[in-house]
């Protein structure tokens, strides 16, 4: 066979064996007990997977082979195998798990247990509960810094960020923030953390080296009553340019200049926007809109909402698999 033909044939075979979808987003539907799978190229739902009761927080394993799902009303964390898209395992999680975070070692899963005021640390390889750490009342948000040094939990009623040393599983510092802190997001270099306070309507920027707040920002969405402006999910672009903040029942996502902390724009999305995730190339940002039951797609370059995709009832979390 001529080399040219051979190469062409090989290329087409490789093309055929490549996955059918360019990228997949997984969305947890809190009231439908399902996950919606969205093709990020066509922005269409391609599959719906049955999972445990009241799925909320979801995250990918560091090798992108498994998806962890907080099945809140089943009091467990389910493990979905991404190749077969079947639930293959469950992990002990403590009661009513809502949010969790995976350590970069791909083993330690930090789970916030809202009713018990604790954070449970589970080793996902052998299902051992490594620690149960007492935190403030109604722990909610959970994040682990990319360098693996810190785990941060937010407690809704105590309005604090609890900084947990991941080696000792001990709290080293509590930082008081606005009312009902919901979510923490670290920059890639683990030097800055962004924390949202839902009722306070604020986002707090924390310097990780000194564990001090360096800035506090609030939002004013034109034409929307101030008490509906409730920051929840946060997503940062890796180039340090933008921070996107989901503003809950105001139905808008704030676009923030991540260097000057200035709000650049408010983008209209569906009702009660909750969590956010960027795709691999950071071309699109997906938002879950709980009340309207859809996912809005934001074009990051143009900063425009290009589409809203109907999913199940009360979509809560969204992750986009960068390997797909």
């Amino acid at each position, binding site marked *: 066979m001529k080399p040219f033909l051979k190469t062409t044939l090989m290329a087409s075979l490789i093309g055929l064996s490549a996955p059918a979808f360019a990228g997949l987003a997984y969305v947890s539907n809190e009231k439908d007990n399902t996950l919606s799978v969205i093709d990020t190229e066509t922005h269409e739902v391609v599959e719906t997977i049955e999972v445990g009761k009241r799925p909320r927080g979801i995250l990918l394993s560091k090798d992108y082979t498994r998806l962890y799902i907080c099945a809140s009303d089943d009091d467990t964390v389910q493990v979905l195998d991404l190749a077969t898209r079947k639930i293959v395992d469950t992990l002990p999680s403590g009661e009513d798990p809502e949010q969790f975070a995976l350590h970069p070692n791909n083993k330690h899963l930090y789970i916030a247990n809202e009713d018990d005021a604790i954070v449970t640390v589970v080793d996902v390889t052998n299902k051992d509960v490594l620690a149960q750490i007492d935190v403030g009342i109604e722990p909610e948000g959970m994040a682990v810094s990319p360098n693996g040094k810190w785990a941060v939990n937010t407690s809704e009623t105590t309005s604090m960020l609890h900084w947990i040393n991941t080696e000792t599983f001990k709290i080293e510092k509590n930082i008081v923030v606005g009312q009902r802190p919901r979510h923490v997001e670290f920059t890639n270099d683990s030097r800055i953390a962004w924390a949202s306070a839902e009722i306070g309507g604020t986002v707090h920027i924390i310097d990780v080296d000194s564990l001090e707040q360096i800035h506090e920002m609030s939002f004013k969405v*034109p*034409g*929307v009553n101030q008490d509906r402006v409730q920051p929840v999910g946060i997503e940062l672009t890796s180039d340090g340019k933008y921070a996107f903040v989901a503003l809950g029942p105001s*139905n808008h996502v704030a676009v923030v200049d991540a260097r000057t902390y200035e709000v650049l724009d408010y983008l*209209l*999305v*569906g*009702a009660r926007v909750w969590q956010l995730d960027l795709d691999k190339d950071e071309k699109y940002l997906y938002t879950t809109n709980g009340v*309207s039951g*859809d996912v*809005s*797609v934001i074009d990051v370059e143009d900063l*425009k*909402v*290009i*589409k*809203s995709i109907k999913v199940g009832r009360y979509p809560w979390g969204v992750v986009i698999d960068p390997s797909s």
Partner: protein
Amino acid sequence: MNATQYWHCFIGIQTREWLRFWQQRTRFASALVRPLLWLVVFAAGFRAVLGISIIPPYETYITYETYIAPGLCGMIILFNSMQGALSMVYDRELGSMRVLLMSPLPRPFLLVTKLLAMGVVSIGQVYVFLLLALLVDVEPPAWGYLAVLPALILTSLMLGALGLLIATWIKQLENFAGVMNFVIFPMFFMSSALYPLWRMNEASPWLYWVCQFNPFTHAVEAIRFSLYLEWNPMAFGITAGVTVVLALLATTGFRPQRTRILGTA
């Protein structure tokens, strides 16, 4: 009659309309004030009202400004067409319309040419309006500005024919105020220009059906869909059908000497 003569006549009528427009440049600007007030002032208060439902041709949630922009394009054409009708009554009273209709060319040709000439000015205003609407973030896709042109021409023909038909009924210039109350306002408010029809249906089903039977609704939807690069055959079909019927009625019914006959009667 050969094509050159038709062309001469066509150009003549177009030029006259442009001259009239040029002499009334301030009218061009002031006609934009009305839709801009709607867009900037009225819509501001309702900005977040529509963010609860996605309706075609939009693929996501839109602001109220974005929703009403196509309706306001329709409004510009509607007001201009009625103003055009007024000018025809005026022309008729002063006799210049009779001069035009004395031309040996067929009357339907003359009248349709006149309608097209009026439409060109309206469409110019619509484009200026759409450019200004960019300032309040009404941003249709770039090709939408071109794709909307057939819908705008069709709308201006339909409303122009309606204006012409009304002009045949109006006996005197003074009666024009009635047109305002009985044609422009009901046509505009009982359409999808300001509210989506599902909303109307929730409020009152009979009003919904009135809106459905209002040809202006379909003209607005034809503008809306083509501005967002979607094809809406029903809206186009109904607008085109109504245009043909109105144009037939208007061109066959137009009597330039009506005023005189009625005046002497």
